[in-house]
């Protein structure tokens, strides 16, 4: 007997809650509250671990049998497809922006640098994980070779792939850019990167989720601010769908 009003009451409260949540999330105050919470987690992670603290590295036997591709798994651009078919002989990775000496590096030049090999776990924002062995030079070596200008604060990764008609890009701060496990990988499990995993070059930034690990890299750009890049939120998914710029959570 009392069931009906009670149920109506609960449904009413739920609807009220849902409406309130939507209003909060869409309000200016709500947005900034979310960003403060996100920044708080980043500050806490950075305060608790040393800046250079490493994520776990696994033994070869602990790798997943295959490595899932996600997001862009192919690049439509004819130049890319031609290069893919021929092993990327003319592919260049530019290092540009706020650097003293802009660079344009071939795959051979990147492979001639000291290499880091790491077996790490890749965690997608959706929840799944895969483990693979990545090889490539540390990003810090490229930045040092190009000599970063003191006003540079972020590193933007430019990519050859497009999603929903927009170019993919990502960005990280200098703490992550200079982290020892942040590398420009050209190999996965001892073989050149497959197309679905970002051939010929992808970023590995191991303390963050998968969407930060930009694939199909064309340029590394040092900037002082992210405001003028894309829509100013620091990355493709950040711009398109409001994903968190700090993807360490």
């Amino acid at each position, binding site marked *: 007997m009392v069931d009906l009003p009670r149920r109506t009451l609960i449904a009413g409260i*739920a609807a009220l*809650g*849902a409406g309130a*949540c*939507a209003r909060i*999330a869409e309000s200016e105050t709500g947005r900034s*509250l*979310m960003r403060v*919470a*996100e920044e*708080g*987690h*980043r500050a806490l*992670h950075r305060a*608790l*671990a*040393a800046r250079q*603290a*490493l*994520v*776990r590295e*696994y033994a070869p036997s*602990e790798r*997943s049998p*295959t490595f*899932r591709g996600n997001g862009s798994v192919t690049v439509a651009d004819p130049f890319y497809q031609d290069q893919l078919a021929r092993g990327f002989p003319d592919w260049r990775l530019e290092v540009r922006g706020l650097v003293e000496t802009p660079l344009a590096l071939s795959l051979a030049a990147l492979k001639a640098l000291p290499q880091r090999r790491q077996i790490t*776990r890749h*965690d*997608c*924002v*959706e*929840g*799944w*994980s*895969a*483990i693979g062995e990545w090889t490539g030079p540390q990003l810090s070596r490229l930045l040092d070779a190009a000599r970063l200008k003191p006003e540079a604060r972020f590193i933007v990764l430019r990519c050859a792939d497009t999603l929903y008609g927009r170019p993919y890009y990502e960005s990280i701060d200098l703490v992550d850019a200079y982290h020892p496990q942040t590398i420009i990988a050209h190999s996965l499990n001892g073989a050149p990167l497959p197309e679905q995993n970002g051939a010929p070059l992808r970023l590995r930034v*191991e*303390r*963050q*989720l998968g969407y930060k690990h930009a694939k199909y890299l064309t340029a590394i750009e040092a900037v002082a601010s992210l405001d003028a890049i894309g829509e100013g939120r620091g990355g493709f*998914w950040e711009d398109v*769908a*409001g*994903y*968190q710029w*700090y*993807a*360490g*959570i």
Partner: protein
Amino acid sequence: MKKHALSTRLWHWINAGAIIVLFMSGLNISNAHPYLYWGDYGFAPGDAWLKVVKFPGWATIPGHYNLAAARDWHILAAWPFGLGLAFIWAAMLANRHFRRDLATRPSDWTPAALRASLQAHRAGGHAAGAGYNPVQKILYGLVLGVLLPLMLLTGLAISPGFEPVAPWLVDLLGGRQSARSLHFLTAWAIFGFFVIHILLALANGRLILEMVTGGRRAAA
């Protein structure tokens, strides 16, 4: 003397709000990849130990699938939840709420004590001022001492940015995908407690009022 200290009441309602937001945004996050695995990795549905149902919009925050927005809510509510848990433990130890009302004695764990608790409940609820019976002590202890801390620890363990702080935590929990599975299972255990808690509280509305006003503790 108040039956419920101000610290208990404040935490109770803030934590209730945080847990509701965390649970409902968590169901939205679950919808992004509704498969659970054991071990360090897992991405193929064939390797999953559980295919989770897709949770409908009325059960999730926001009320439609939106992983980015659900994560915003989850990341926000994690603060009052985590800080609140640290606060209530400090308060419970400082004001002796834990030792006085929640800590169990070996005699509380005997089948006879548990039977007596349930019989007392069936006979019309606990006598005012009699304190918590053994079943209540064990359940509240389980929630405060095991389930809520496990929720926090498994949440930290599945955050790649937190991993370098305590890589041993991920290993202790059996790997990241195990930690994620435990995060999910513990959330539902807390939901189970929540349902029982609400039903028993609705059966005696005075209890809800007392968690607001503090009520009065009968003279011992």
